[in-house]
């Protein structure tokens, strides 16, 4: 218990060398939880403090996130995913790797968080996933060279450095961006994102795997976390994050998101459109446009970000006003005029640059506004 918490979980949250060893399966969770009576241990206190510090970034937390069975499963799943890159497993396509990936998938398959607090608790454990790096060291000496992936060379390799002309090259590579998840572990990683979707929602601009509405929608249903995610999207730039989320909405509505994750439905697509509109509302309320310039068809502004968002918002506003206009905001007044002006600007951008995509966006908006299929109650016939 203690080595796993102190040598792996704590470094993953706090920073430092996270030791990756033998992969563990679902049976290990019960064993680790049984050996848990370490409440007065300084390691657990540090882990609680670090998780609280991370949780406080997204939500006011009164009590530290508990180290419960769910946390243990997610930690073990992450450990197994990292172990897939261990040289002792013989590469990402070996039979051993398939078994480890299956164990990681089993550990990570706990579904979306049922409450906002649970989402924050899980996020506090996995928030630093994109920051994990592996340092590979290549030792050059007079007879050749030897590479050590993620571990320090033993002293025998670096002994007598002047005589053997020893030179060590170190390369730091990001686990997510440069090393990448092996193909066999991709499903487990997606399951991990489903279990803790807040990290994905807070980083809409990531390239691979791209943000998927099917995974982040469960966490956006909690108003406190949705506000945090919207604030992060606005801080990253309404145009850029809006573009990424609008792109993801095309995939989500056309069932092109990789499982697991919830499937698209008229209700969920409408929610996603309203969330996009919420970001634009925030921009209208608290941001100021740098310059109101008139769009011209002779100047190509399609390179600038924001066109996808403009197309999607224009399609939603023209299809059903309720998709972009909250019910408790009056039709008249300065705020309504400001938002109407913004819609007009978006419409002019969409008209000029985004027409090829407009048809698809209008289809998505129509699905959200008036679903093609509706539930009916079947009456038994006699």
């Amino acid at each position, binding site marked *: 218990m203690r080595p796993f918490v102190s040598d792996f979980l704590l470094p993953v*949250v706090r*920073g*430092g*060398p*996270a030791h*990756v060893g*033998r*992969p*563990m*399966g*679902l*049976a*290990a969770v019960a064993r680790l939880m049984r050996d848990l009576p370490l409440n007065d241990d300084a390691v657990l206190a*540090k882990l609680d403090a*670090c998780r*609280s*510090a*991370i949780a*406080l970034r997204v939500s006011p937390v009164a009590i530290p996130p508990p180290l419960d069975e769910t946390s243990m499963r997610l930690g073990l799943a992450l450990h197994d995913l990292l172990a897939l*890159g*261990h*040289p*002792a497993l013989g590469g990402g396509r070996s039979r*051993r790797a398939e*078994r*480890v990936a*299956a*164990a990681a998938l*089993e550990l990570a398959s706990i579904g979306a968080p049922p409450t906002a607090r649970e989402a924050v608790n899980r996020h506090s454990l996995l928030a630093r996933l994109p*920051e*994990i*790096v*592996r*340092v590979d060291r290549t030792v050059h000496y007079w007879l050749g060279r030897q590479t050590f*992936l*993620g*571990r320090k060379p033993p002293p025998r390799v670096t002994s007598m450095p002047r005589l053997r002309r020893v030179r060590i090259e*170190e390369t*730091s590579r990001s686990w997510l*961006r*440069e090393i990448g998840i092996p193909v066999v572990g991709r499903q487990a990683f997606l399951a991990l994102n489903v279990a803790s979707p807040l990290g994905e929602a807070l980083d809409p601009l*990531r*390239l*691979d795997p791209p943000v998927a509405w099917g995974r982040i929608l469960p966490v956006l249903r909690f108003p406190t976390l949705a506000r945090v995610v919207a604030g992060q999207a*606005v*801080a*990253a*730039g*309404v*145009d*850029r994050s809006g573009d990424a989320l609008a792109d993801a909405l095309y995939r989500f509505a056309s069932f092109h998101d990789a499982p697991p994750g919830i499937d698209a439905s008229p209700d969920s697509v409408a929610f996603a459109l309203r969330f996009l509109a919420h970001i634009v509302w925030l921009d209208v309320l*608290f*941001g*100021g*446009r*740098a310059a109101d310039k008139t769009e011209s068809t002779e100047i190509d502004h*399609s*390179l*600038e*970000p924001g066109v996808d968002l403009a197309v999607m918002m224009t399609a939603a506003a023209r299809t059903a006003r309720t998709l972009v206009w909250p019910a408790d905001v009056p039709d008249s007044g300065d705020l309504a005029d400001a938002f109407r002006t913004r819609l007009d600007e978006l419409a002019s951008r969409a008209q000029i640059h985004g027409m090829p995509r407009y048809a698809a966006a209008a289809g998505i908006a129509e699905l959200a506004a008036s679903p093609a299929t509706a539930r009916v109650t079947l009456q038994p016939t006699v």
Partner: protein
Amino acid sequence: MLQRVVFGQTRFNLPGLAADARGVVVGRQLAARFAAIDRLVAFLRLLSAEQSIDDLQPGLRIVYARGGAGTREAIVQMPIVSPGLADVVAHAARLAGGQTFTGTGKQFVQYRDARAPFGYDVAALADVAGDLVLHGTEQMVPYRIESEMPLAKLLLRLSLVRAARRGAGASFSDGPIYVTARRGLGPMLSAYLHRAAVAAPAGGGELRASAALCEGATASAFANAESFWLFRVERLPARMHGLLTRTPGLDVFVPVTDNVAVAAGYRHPIHLGSCRGSFPPDRLHLFSPGGVTEVAPLPVLAAIEDVVRVRAPEARAATASPRARPELALSLRLEAGGASSGPTVAALIPWKRVPWLQRLCYALPTSALRNYRVAPLERGVLVRASEVLEGIPFGTLFELAAPDVLVPVGMRLVPAVSPALLVDRLGATGGATVVFPERTGAPFRVPAEALVPLELRVVGALAPPIDDTMVNRPRAESVTDPVEIENRPMGPMPLWGLRGSGSEG
């Protein structure tokens, strides 16, 4: 079905193909096909290292297309602007795991390779629908274009790659660098750079710096509210590298082109120097791990000598200055001045009387709670009113001897110098308050940021200060160290830990 082109062949079945001086068949355009976006990025990186991407503009297009088999692939179309370009592109595409085609319009045929040194031509044109038709040696695939990714958009979306190990210490060349600083840090950094520039030995290696305050930096509406200082520093001494790179709130950028800079210690996946045309010349782009900051229009940098702030002397320095000129200078003294000359504006309440203040807060009106400001100090709590302090009958009460200079009620400062001179010499500027607590005690200065509204303070608990400043808050746990994988030996049976789990075996 493709057929190899022979030397000297002049007639081709695919429209738009022609033989160049070497006999190699090329069209007017090239198309490079990739199965994944990471391969596309690798291709652009390799190509930008050898060839200026700007030379391919206009006409460079990156499109996502769906093939006949349903696969979605990235295709880069570019014009052939020079005879040797096709070979460079084909080499880069092959390294990145892609395929190269040449042609004109929508029909493309595979570019030459080792089996066909002069290239390929189609045996017969097929009438298939599609926006692009790529004829390969193994199959002909029609593509339907689904979307287009502008190059500039791709450049702005890619994440930076760490060039040096974190914590290894950043070092950069003597060339110019950009430094961004939070608004509060700007004056201090400008003063620091100014001192370093003045202290540098005369000669060719002196430090030169210029600065600008950037407002409304990025296209994001929320970022408009953030303003920051931008410094351009040339010939920065090596001893200052660590300070600039490790100080929170300061970010160092190394210029790649005239208007593009990348965070020190990082590099962009694509060589930005060959993509100058993708960045508008009237904006400064700062690439950092957290995203791209666009400064528009280009900032006008002022010399650091004009930016550095001239500070007034400290209050204690004013009282100590008489030693330097004993024949003329006098120290300020408090003397009984008879009746009060103005309203009571502040009170210094010792800590043992703070419980009285706490009970009194329940009775104070809203306006008092909102307008009174308090600063917890070592000797007590200073309560300051903007105009008149009412409702606090205990502690030492103060009135104004000059703007923001407090003396006890009924006392006056002698010699009776003008209030403006007092303010200037005591440093009671920028919202700071100078307090003469008693006749024999030395004055002290309370900075503006130490005074917070009473209503904010009473919400939390008042606690004794540590060192004559604001009450310290409990320190939060630091979670900023890098997370590094360290592989441990797994032993002879690495899957031993999986036994008993629900997985196979």
